[in-house]
């Protein structure tokens, strides 16, 4: 019975929507800065999945090229973001997102 269900683009888009929501909830609910960053990565992956789903549905290579560039930008963003986190934690050990209230220092 399960074998007859054909998986259309809507299925993948629903999973991408749920994944985006979970990533957003991670950013909203967790106070550990590194885990908030992981939530951002989840959201980026949800967008990648959406782009690939539409590229497959509309038979267009541009969606896959766009995902390629999103991957590259995400990698650059992670490296810089983690460097910022390292430099923040150097002065205050055990800081959470609630403690990071001022722009300097």
């Amino acid at each position: 019975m399960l074998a007859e269900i054909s998986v259309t683009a809507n299925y993948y888009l629903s999973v991408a929507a749920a994944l985006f929501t979970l990533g957003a909830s991670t950013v909203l609910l967790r106070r550990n800065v590194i885990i908030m960053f992981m939530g951002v990565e989840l959201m980026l992956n949800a967008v990648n999945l959406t782009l690939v789903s539409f590229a497959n549905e509309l038979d267009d290579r541009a969606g896959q090229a766009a995902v390629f560039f999103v991957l590259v930008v995400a990698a650059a963003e992670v490296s810089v973001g983690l460097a910022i986190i390292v430099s923040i934690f150097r002065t205050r050990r055990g800081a959470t997102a609630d403690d990071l209230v001022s722009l300097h220092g």
Partner: protein
Amino acid sequence: MTFAIFLGASFLVLGGALGVLRLRNPVHAAMSLVVSLVGIAVFFLMQNAVLLAAVQIIVYASAIVVLFLFVIMLLGVDKVDPSNAEPGTRLPLAVGVSACILGGIFAATSKVWTTGTESLAGPIAKDGESNVSRVAEVIFTDYVWAFELTGILLTIAVVGAVVLARKEGASLITEGEASDVG
């Protein structure tokens, strides 16, 4: 069969994301993130995005997660968990926002709407050509400008990360110190 694989991969993806949301230890959360990213790679494979599945595994599930783990170990966050605070008053607001996001995206994707514009870069598959050559062709010809810009972006990111993470007043190591290593 496709539906069974879809169900399995979506369990991986959403279960991994739930793990990132709920797990207290950052190292456990990073491992859960790896599970989710591998599930995404399976989705890419199911949708004729072969190059992207490989790049996803190489870049995301390996390099980026290892970077996360490096920083977690470097800062010692896996031993000391400062964020024992409960979400508290933030929880209903977060649930409300998440429900709105989910509802909005579900409403938008319940039908697949196409606008009827022409294809941007041509069909995905062509006889005799692999997906790698198809995507590489469009990256290096139509979008080569964006490709070069991402190269510059990566260079800037590397230099920026080194500058940001460097200790204040750190000098180059001298001859004597260099011979002390190993």
